[in-house]
């Protein structure tokens, strides 16, 4: 039983539909709870009534409406609709108006023989979930008027405090329940909208990850199919194997980034750059990495940089027709800088493709690196990636001398 109690809330989703279902439980609970309070007094109510048969008919009408309203709400999995609420309010009002005819005057206030005011309160509470504001306000006002009729139109004298208190109970409970229904519905609507937004963002993120992982592989496959000779194809084999590994990891559900950003694991950047450059033996490429030999970055950043550099060099191979490609790594007080320069044909930086936009600029920006692309037709391309903080600078002989002094 206890395990069932633990499961029950989890089965009720926190969506708009789930909330309406919770409201249906609330409605049924209030109505059936009121009915349960009415039952013990029904016998004595009939005995003391000046019109026992009429009293019993009215009581059965109230009980039947309570049960029927509860069943309908539970079956529909939402509170009663407009028509049912109108009927509910009308019945509660009618029972209040008829009450003086079926009740002894001395039981009108403060007894469960006179169940009608309590029944009317249960209707006010459960009808607060009705959508129309006019219906709700009109119903509340009508029941208050009916309650005044119930009191014989006299709310003065010794009954005044109780009468006013009961009327205020109607007003306050009505307002509070109305606000409760309205506010929780807004929360559920916002939650649904947020879920939809999150799902859309997740879809876009997955699409972006797929683009990032697949882009270089697709470019390599295109080069493999376009390259004319076995020699030019063999130069692509290392690159193709690296891309194959990356795509396989992605399809197995592993993050292409490896460890998450912020992971304490760091790697030296120069060997990563050197490894990528080694996959392009057919490019006239010079890798000048001495000045950045001490640079270390988070492993996830290194993975992103590896993909980005590979994408840049694939672009150079495919489009640049360059005589010279320079990959230069440096660091200074403000951080490290990786420069990739080719003297090829250049392009319009405003019209970048997926590779530059997502794999290079977008992906590196997500890892906190800055990318600057400078290119013009006929004047080659320079891509500068900066990040930080810088690793400890390499000591110069002059540093040693200064310390020795």
């Amino acid at each position, binding site marked *: 039983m206890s395990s069932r109690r633990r499961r029950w809330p989890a089965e009720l989703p926190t969506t708009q539909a789930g909330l309406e279902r919770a409201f249906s439980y609330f409605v049924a609970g209030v109505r059936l709870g009121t009915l349960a309070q009415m039952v013990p007094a029904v016998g004595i109510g009939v005995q003391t009534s000046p019109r026992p048969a009429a009293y019993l008919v009215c009581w059965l009408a109230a009980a039947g409406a309570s049960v029927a309203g509860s069943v309908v709400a539970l079956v529909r999995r939402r509170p009663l609709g407009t028509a049912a609420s109108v009927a509910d309010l009308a019945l509660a009002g009618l029972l209040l108006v008829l009450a003086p005819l079926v009740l002894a005057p001395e039981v009108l206030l403060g007894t469960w023989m006179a169940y009608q005011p309590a029944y009317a309160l249960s209707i006010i509470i459960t009808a607060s979930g009705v959508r129309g504001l006019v219906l709700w306000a009109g119903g509340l006002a009508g029941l208050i008027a009916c309650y005044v009729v119930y009191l014989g139109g006299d709310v003065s004298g010794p009954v005044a405090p109780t009468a006013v208190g009961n009327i205020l109970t109607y007003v306050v409970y009505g307002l509070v329940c109305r606000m409760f229904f309205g506010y929780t519905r807004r929360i559920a609507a916002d939650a649904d909208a947020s879920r939809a937004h999150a799902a859309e963002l997740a879809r876009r993120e997955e699409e972006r990850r797929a683009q990032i992982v697949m882009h270089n592989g697709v470019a390599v496959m295109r080069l493999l199919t376009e390259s004319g000779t076995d020699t030019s194809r063999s130069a692509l084999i290392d690159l193709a194997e690296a891309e194959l590994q990356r795509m396989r990891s992605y399809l197995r559900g592993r993050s292409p980034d490896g460890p998450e950003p912020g992971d304490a694991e760091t790697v030296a950047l120069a060997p990563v750059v050197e490894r990528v450059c080694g996959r392009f033996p057919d490019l*006239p490429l*010079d890798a*000048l990495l*001495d*000045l950045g*030999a001490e640079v270390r970055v988070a492993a996830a950043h290194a993975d992103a940089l590896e993909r980005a550099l590979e994408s840049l060099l694939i672009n150079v191979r495919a489009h640049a027709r360059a*005589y*010279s*490609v*320079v990959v*230069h790594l440096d660091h200074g007080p403000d951080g490290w800088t990786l*420069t990739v*320069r*080719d*003297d090829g044909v250049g392009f319009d930086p405003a019209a970048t493709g997926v590779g530059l936009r997502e794999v290079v600029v977008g992906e590196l920006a997500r890892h906190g690196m800055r990318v600057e692309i*400078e290119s013009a037709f006929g*004047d*080659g391309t*320079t891509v500068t990636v900066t990040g930080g903080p810088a690793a400890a600078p*390499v000591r*110069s*002989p*002059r540093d040693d001398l200064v310390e020795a002094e």
Partner: protein
Amino acid sequence: MRPAVAVVDDASLIRDSIGLLMPGLDVVFAAATVEEVVRARPRADLVVLDLHLTNLDQPPGVRQGIAAIRALTGCGYRVCVYTQEERRFVLAACIAAGAAGVAAKALPTARAEQLFLEVATGGTVVPQPVVGILEVLVRRDCITLLSERQRQLLHGRARGLSYAQLAKRLYVSESTLRGYWLDLTRSLSESLRNLTPGEIEHTLGLAPGDLLEFWSSETTDTAHWWRTGAGTQHTL
């Protein structure tokens, strides 16, 4: 006017075809060894020199590599090395030995011709890996550059930036920058020449002795100056 060029290469195909393939050059002399050039002393604005000049057909003891560069510069020639060599310290040693330029045989013919013309007309062609070494030596105070403009220029050239890009960044004309670069490379080559292998090894974080087998010295006219260490490339 086409510059007069002497070609030294043990491959007869290159000796015979370079003049045909590079119409901007006037090839006045072609030889398989440096010794022939030294003996003939042709009038040439430039000597295009292959680094590796020994083969089964060559007489034993021919100069090659650093010794060949030294022999030619000693006779007053401007030398541009034309080689398949890619090891950066070998290329740096060539510059330190007095070569005014180094061009890779992998370059397209037109590009190589352009570089030869640049060297023949007084320019210098420093390979990018050597520019990188020079930048490290300057940054680590092994070579002193007095001018901030020189540092900026070296900084840009080490990253492969074009004269046009640098001219925009430094607010000077391209021709001015070319002049600066010529002066700077001459100055850096001179500084490089005056460094010992030990100083360079220390600055670059190499192990002692790593450079001895390719760096310039008075005893480099051996037949095995190009010998490679374990794990290095054999590209000759």
